């Protein structure tokens, strides 16, 4: 052993001798090289948080929040084979009686048949987009608080309104047990607890109040200020209506507070696929959804009734949807990819007034409001601003059932393809005691050999199981 070590030492000496300067130089290079900036690279495609933390970035932040909200609401221009085009309007419209599925994707076929699967990729994307819109508006509001003059800049109120609206969509279209989580500045996650639907409505109302206060605090009386005030009022009244607080809703959206001419819309453009109107794309361009006609035996006969508020066509005659077998009836309210979509309108305020009247037992008052609206259809109804000819006045309903039917029919036609119908069907069951069999589509589904299921809302996608506080919907009640 000793002998070996001695020879080893001798060999080492030879190494140091012979390797000499070459090895020393190499080792030095190897050791020092990482100290330089050789690893520095730049990526020009991304926006880092530091670059948007200033007042100059507020328009960019606002545009981002508006975009996220619009995509959550109407979808986008990407073709929906991956489920990326849909928003709340298409999915809730399909689950209700507004739309039918005219394509092949099983998860969306199942949703149309009231059998939504929590594993559905489409549901996951749409649900995620709505949360993204919620947080985007929340973060934007914080930036406006931090960097803007909130007495002159309308941005804060608008972001608060959009944030509150996302809660309305959650409560109206999804099951009970929603969670609302958050990401802190340091990147850590704060998971939310499951909330009953009632609490989600309460949250929406509370946030609309904050938005209303922010809008009211704006100096002057400009149109932008008025728009945000009215948006907050319609949103708050909508949530109050959902809670069954009809009287309170009525007082929030009086004619004086919210005129018939008011409308707040999401805007769309052809500048990028993301900016396109997803409702137009999903129905007319990609033919994955079509206008229903008496779906499931109880749905509104949108085609048969040929109401001017709900223009639809099948062209060329016999045109089929993406599945190659279902007749494709296209909506003609949103005429192209750039068409704006109404979020809140004066018409909706009047419908809330009418329902409050109905609840008070003032059927005549309700009829007056409805007929006034029909006599002077608002100009914003069709996305291209084309006028709808005055509609014939409705005859007085006979009996309370007919009155309710009339009100909800009018709501359906005025609020067509704006993510109201599903909530209205749920309210018919929840607030008016209508049985499911006369409210939601039932019986044999028109393809795939399915029968309609019992869904009255959308399930929370399984991706939410990654929230340790979430396990399942609390209930699937109307």
């Amino acid at each position, binding site marked *: 052993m000793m002998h070996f070590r001695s020879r080893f030492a001798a060999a080492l000496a030879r190494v140091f001798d012979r390797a000499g300067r070459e090895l020393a130089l190499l080792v030095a290079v190897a050791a020092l090289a990482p100290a330089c900036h050789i690893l520095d690279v730049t990526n020009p495609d991304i926006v880092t948080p530091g670059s948007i933390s200033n007042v100059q970035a507020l328009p960019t932040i606002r545009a981002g929040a508006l975009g996220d909200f619009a995509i959550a609401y109407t979808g986008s221009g990407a073709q929906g084979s991956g489920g990326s085009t849909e928003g709340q309007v298409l999915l809730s419209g399909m689950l209700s009686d507004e739309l039918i599925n005219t394509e092949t994707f099983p998860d969306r076929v199942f949703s149309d048949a009231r059998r939504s699967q929590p594993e559905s990729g489409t549901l996951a994307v749409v649900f995620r987009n709505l949360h993204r819109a919620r947080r985007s508006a929340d973060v934007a509001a914080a930036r406006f608080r931090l960097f803007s003059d909130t007495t002159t800049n309308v941005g804060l109120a608008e972001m608060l309104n959009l944030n509150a609206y996302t809660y309305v969509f959650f409560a109206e279209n999804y099951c009970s047990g*929603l969670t609302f989580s958050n990401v802190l500045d340091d*990147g850590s996650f704060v998971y939310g607890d499951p909330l009953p639907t009632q609490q989600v409505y309460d949250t929406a109302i509370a946030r609309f109040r904050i938005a209303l206060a922010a809008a009211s605090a704006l100096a002057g009386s400009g149109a932008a200020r008025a728009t945000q005030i009215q948006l907050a009022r319609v949103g708050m009244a909508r949530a109050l209506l959902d809670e069954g607080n009809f009287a309170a809703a009525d007082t929030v959206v009086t004619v004086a507070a919210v005129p018939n001419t008011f409308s707040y819309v999401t805007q769309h453009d052809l500048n990028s696929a993301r*900016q396109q109107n997803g409702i137009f794309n999903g129905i007319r361009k990609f033919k994955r959804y079509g206008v229903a006609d008496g779906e499931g035996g109880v749905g509104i006969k949108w085609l048969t009734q040929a109401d001017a508020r709900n223009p639809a066509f099948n062209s060329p005659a016999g045109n089929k949807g993406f599945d190659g077998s279902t007749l494709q009836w296209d909506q003609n309210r949103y005429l192209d990819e750039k068409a704006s979509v109404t979020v809140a309108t004066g018409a909706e305020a009047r419908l809330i007034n009418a329902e409050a009247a109905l609840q008070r037992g003032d059927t005549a008052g309700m009829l007056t409001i409805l007929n006034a609206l029909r006599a002077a259809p608002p100009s914003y109804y069709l996305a291209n601003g084309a006028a709808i000819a005055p509609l014939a006045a409705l005859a007085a309903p006979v009996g309370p059932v007919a009155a309710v039917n009339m009100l909800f029919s009018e709501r359906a036609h005025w609020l067509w393809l704006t993510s109201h119908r599903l909530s209205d069907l749920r309210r018919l069951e929840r607030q008016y005691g209508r049985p499911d069999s006369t409210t939601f589509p039932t019986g044999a589904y028109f393809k795939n050999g399915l029968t309609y299921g019992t869904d009255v809302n959308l399930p929370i996608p399984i991706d939410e199981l990654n929230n340790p506080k979430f396990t399942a919907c609390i209930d699937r009640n109307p």
Partner: protein
Amino acid sequence: MERVNIRQRVGALALVGLLVGAGSALAQQTAVSGRVTDSTSRQPIVAAQVFVGGTTLRTLTDQQGRFHFDNVPPGAVTVRVAFIGYKAQVKTVTAQPGAPATVDFALLFAPIGLDAVVVTATGPQMQREQGNAIHTVDAAAVVSKAPVTNMADMLNSRAPGMVVQEAGGTTGSGTRTRIRGSNSLSLSNEPVLYVDGIRVENGASSSSIGVGGQVPSRLNDLNPNDVEAVEVAGGPSAGALFGTDAANGVISFRTRQGKPGPTRWEAYASGGTITDNYTYPTNYRGIDLDSTWLATHANNPTCTLVTTVRPVSPCTQDSVRQFNPLETNSPFRNGSRQEYGLSASGGTEQTTYYVSSHYSNELGVYPINTNRQISVLANLHQQASAKVDFSAHAAYTSGKLRLPQNDNNSFGVLSSGYLGRADTINSGFGFLLPSQSFTVRTFQTIDRFTGSGQVNYRPAEWLTMHGVAGVDFTSRYDENSILPGNIPASFSSNANAGSRNANPFQLYNWTTNFDATAAFVLTPQIKSQTTVGLQYFKNVLHGVTASTQTLTAGTNSLAGGVLPTVSEQTAPVVTLGRYAEERLAYNDRVYITGAVRDDKNTAFGVKFGSILYPKVAGSWVISEEPFFPKTAKLSTLRLRAAWGESGVRPGVTDALQFFNGAPWLVGATDIPGITIASLGNPNLKPETTHETELGFEADVLSEAVHLDFAYYNKASRDALIARTLAPSLGGPTTRFENLGRVSNKGVEISSSWRALTTHEVSVNVTATAWGNRNRLVELGTGISPIIFGLGGASQRFQRGFALGSYFMVPYTFSDANADGIIDTSEVKLGSAPVFLGQPFPDHGGTLALDVTLRAHLRLYALLDGRFGNKLFNSTEQFRCGLANCRGINDKTAPLADQAAAAGNLKGTQAGYIEDGSFTKLREVSITYFAPDAWAQRFGARELSFSIAGRNLATWTKYKGIDPELNEAGQSNFITADFLTQPPVRYFIGRVNVTF
């Protein structure tokens, strides 16, 4: 006390060394020379590798088979000679200053040997030194006998443990390659590629235009005809010094080099047919002829077997319509392939060269599917002096590929047929007619240059410095055009108006590597080689994607469109690695290697510094020990063991929190906006994989059989998982986190058997077998199974199961009413999804037979079997979902098929997770080596003809078209047969002439 003595001795010896200086050492050197010949023919072996043990001295034999070394240390000198296809020899001679030694070698033929030279991260080394398996593919031999149409064919079924998965039969499409299983859940599992010492692009799914499924990979830009050998280093134990990204294995290509001698011209011409040899399924439609029923089902007049789910409007099936559009109106043609090549090689002892050029043109079975490639290559090696040699490599490939619309694509031909009609309306096609689909023009144009230079400098016999620098640059141009009016407006008004995508991409890979190796004799028994090195690697992808809708008639340019959109992407990554390796050899029989590499990478999180990859390995040629019994039954035995680590880096921006630009219309103007793209992870670090490998090699039965066995146990820790985030967080879908652990355990066995060797006949049999047990050991606390796959929920990453396993709700069925029909009521679903199988085979093997008759006729066949996997037959599932399949329409269909269809309607596709095991007759060839007299008539030296076939037969239980299909092409894990074009059959003839 002893320690002090050693230090004193070291110091004293070092001092002596410094005083004496290197000059005295050089003055004592001597020379060794000799000649290498074939033991049978006595002909010289040109370009055999000759090494002097204990030094870094190495050379190649000249055209007379001669070699010569100067600067050899005096005394006993070990000289080793190796040449591919021969058994290496070692001889010891004594040389003294002023008395140089001569030693000659007569090599014995042996296809596999311990002394083959393999390329490692620290340069060429002998196989016997390696503690891990490195499988070498003799590329030139493969090309000479097998129908190799691209590099994937070259690799497929050549090395145990390396699984090359064809996804379909589209000409120009890529493959999925896995070596020793999949390590990573979320990052690429493709191996790293090196060509002549520099890293080259190996992007899977290398296209920005979606055609539904099959797209190219950059692997197939390399021309197999220019490759001398391919070396496959399996896992981290072999790839540790290749650094970050090498955890998935390393495939090194050595291109052909010139040999000293007059210019040798080689030319070949090949051509053949490509055919689709499948029988496609018939479309079915049950019909109730009752007029009332027909009237109420005008939209969809289908009366399936499943009647009980139609309580409101039941039907009675009167007949079943059948039509097969894909057989009756076949969209396929007989394709063809032609390829021509010419190379020249030769040189002097100082300068050798190899230049080549190849042209190939393949016309796939779809009339528009074509792939044309032209490649040129030049290799130059210059022995500038006894101390310096350098080599240069330059290769250029130009290609133009046209892809069809395929797979998961409503524009696809097969989708239109599979999901078509049971009548002759629209010729039975459900969407587009094939002729309409073929009007979509999807091209990829490639211009790729790979250039590198290497320098070896040996300032002393014990020191070699090696430098290599090079770039692999690919200009890729993806384009897609739909001309106005070509697609019916009734199918898509958008497509009818026309559209175009034009996306130029540039992919850069720069490699710079410098290392120095010092070799010295510690004792007469112990030799040492020490290597230190530095590697810089930079990869940049830059691309612009531009598209427009509504083309102006008569134009095919973005300029003709009216709705242009544009985007840009940039992805730069830099890796800087330092490494050191110490190799000790004891009596040239026992080898111990210790190594370490330290990497920094731009993709690591800001809080993470660098990563250290260690490695230790040992190899013992025990059969050369004096105590080992010398028997013919076991003439050679080498034991080996290795342990090492390597890693895979995160994506370029995975560690960063950032937003993407997302403009939005505000008022009347589009203004810049943002949307959250990544939440970032400042703690992100590379996924590291460590591997233990044990193995042996043996020559048995008088060296008629060579065996190679390897067992590996590989585990990835800090597995990078694209963790699905709870949607309620309001962010992106996933965030990369170091969470999981993945295990791969397996064996690799290869054997070659010289079954018969006579003057008349030689029979060689090569067999391989492999097994891999892949498991997700840990997914991270609180992380629910990650669910993905075709349809969104067919596959999972779930703890305890193989990555990407199929999970679905099970069902049972019984024909309760004994009516011969399975209705939905007779199918009972389970309560939750269960494991149904894994998408990757877990064992397999190959069997190759090589028979040569009278040295003129060679027969070759290759069988390939892969087992243990399932495949989601979503083609049939979707057809049944659309009431198009037999199982839902035809009461004579097997009950199991009916139950699968009924289960599908009830929400489970479990009935379509089918056994994907198969055995395929991959290759068969017959080659005739013409007598010299024939060749001489043409003024040639050698002449041969061959006819070869690929994909000739399949044995499988899979019910779909082919068990190798994957609609997701080269996707990391998504695996499903969904309207996918199956592999095609090749018959190719080839003529080789050498002048």
